[in-house]
């Protein structure tokens, strides 16, 4: 509760923990140092095997960023990309939870869908671009499809495992109250599996974001990925860096959104008074960092 208790409670794990403001200073300093290094390397056109001669400087990139924020085209790209990821990811969340639950609870569903999904799962979503182009009348639908495919498997797999790992007495208890199949599903299976499902959603939103950008680069007509690639083809390097910064910020925004939603839905989970590990803000970053490599493998 109070500061000494916090230190005492977590001391065995991480050693004495510095005051919160020290940690904020440290984090800000790390980011500023990285930016300063970039500025120096680009400004002095450093060429030590790695070549920074073509790199825009931080100030050039920032100036370009500020200019683009004032244009309608930038916001159109952002909203296109966000629409695609929200559509594809929402579809993946709903279908992934449904299919994962069916796989875990129905032998029939497992026999019919299991082998098929196991064969499709190793195919990277971005390798589905040709399929998407053949399948859908417009590029737009193809991109949403690829975003969906990227998130679908992590959500399905995590849902299946979470449902199978449920404590059996929960279901037995509810069945002895006269609950039918759907009541068990709604009152026990879904809420009980939710913490595990959220892990899959977290991974899924990260992979989705990677795939929406890649798909836009290949076949988009608008969108942040499309714009970034266009800027590259016309050698507008500050524009490319603005695109990358935008991708990073929006990715962070979407995964934080999923994370916050998840924490809100699982407030019932037992937690120690101060929570284990890093403070809340740091936890979000850590989960996302884990989510992205896990999903792309």
């Amino acid at each position, binding site marked *: 509760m109070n500061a000494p208790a916090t230190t005492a409670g977590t001391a065995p794990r991480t050693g004495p923990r510095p005051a919160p403001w020290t940690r904020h200073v440290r984090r800000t300093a790390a980011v500023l140092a990285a930016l300063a290094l970039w500025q120096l390397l680009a400004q002095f056109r450093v060429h030590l095997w790695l070549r920074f001669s073509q790199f825009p400087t931080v100030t050039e990139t920032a100036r370009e960023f500020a200019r683009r924020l004032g244009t309608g085209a930038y916001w159109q790209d952002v909203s296109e990309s966000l629409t695609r990821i929200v559509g594809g990811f929402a579809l993946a969340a709903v279908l992934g939870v449904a299919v994962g639950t069916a796989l875990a609870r129905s032998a029939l569903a497992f026999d019919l869908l299991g082998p098929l999904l196991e064969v499709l799962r190793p195919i990277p979503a971005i390798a589905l671009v040709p399929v998407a182009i053949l399948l859908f009348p417009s590029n737009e639908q193809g991109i949403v499809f690829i975003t969906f495919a990227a998130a679908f498997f992590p959500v399905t797999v995590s849902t299946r495992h979470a449902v199978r790992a449920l404590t059996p*007495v*929960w279901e*037995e*208890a*509810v*069945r*002895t*109250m*006269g*609950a039918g199949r759907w*009541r068990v599903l709604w*009152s*026990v299976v879904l*809420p*009980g599996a*939710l913490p595990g499902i959220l892990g899959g959603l977290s991974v899924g939103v990260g992979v989705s974001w990677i795939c929406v950008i890649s798909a836009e680069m290949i076949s988009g007509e608008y969108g942040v990925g499309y714009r970034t690639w266009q800027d590259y083809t016309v050698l507008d390097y500050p524009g490319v860096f603005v695109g990358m910064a935008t991708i990073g910020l929006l990715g962070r925004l979407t995964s934080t959104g999923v994370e916050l939603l998840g924490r809100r839905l*699982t407030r*019932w*989970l*037992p937690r120690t008074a101060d929570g284990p590990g890093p403070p809340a803000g740091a936890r979000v970053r850590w989960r996302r960092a884990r989510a992205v490599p896990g999903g792309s493998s």
Partner: protein
Amino acid sequence: MTDTEITPAAPAQGAAPGLRLTLTDAVLGRLGAPVLHGLDLDVAAGEILTVVGPSGCGKSTLLRTLAGLLPLLDGRLSQDGEPVEGPAADRALIFQEDALLPWRTLRANVELPLAIRGVARAQRRARADDWVARVGLTAHATRLPHQVSGGQRQRAQLARALAGRPRAVLMDEPFGALDAQTRAGMQQLLVTVLTGTRATVVFVTHDVDEALFLGDRVALLGTGRVLDVPRPRVRAAHAEPATAALRREVLASLDGRTEGRPGVRRTA
């Protein structure tokens, strides 16, 4: 016992009569792993039958079968003469392990059987609150299960099971994980709240004193014997001459039970 202010139970007016449960020549267990063979058991309507037996003798299997969660491998199970098919709300099961849903508050857990039956929200809330009060948990009604003690969780389980107005309550060592003092309080509470119902109770335990204190009759699983317990209930069973003799008999019969005795196959 600071928070055990137990509201006296209402007299058993209008409560549904208890179920008579009958097992005939039953084989219980999971397919390929039968635990109990040739079991005959008749539980009279409204009685409290305690079942004792060493661990691993099939006590939990018996209760899960009575609840309808485990199908019989052979033989018959009937309630009031009708065959039992699957679990139903009139036979409530209380577990030794924590079976409260951890994302629901204690009150919401107690409301659950009423919600499943489709009782309207306001009425459901009132009845849940009544049961929460009867088990002395009013101060903790809005807490989550992990925020209260093990004894309080078992009280909430009891309230949840009884809120559905079952006609039989099946209890699987519900106080087995509690310390001795909490356990004695829970036994007293159980007797108190049960007087408000006419439900049949099957109570499984490995504690002979608990079995003698709670039971109208004690069934010795594996021996095929069922013993009547003298009334009124007394806490120190060994101090009363009549129960002391009974206690010796129960212990002797559990000790003297040999491996290959009919009615039981020992599991490793």
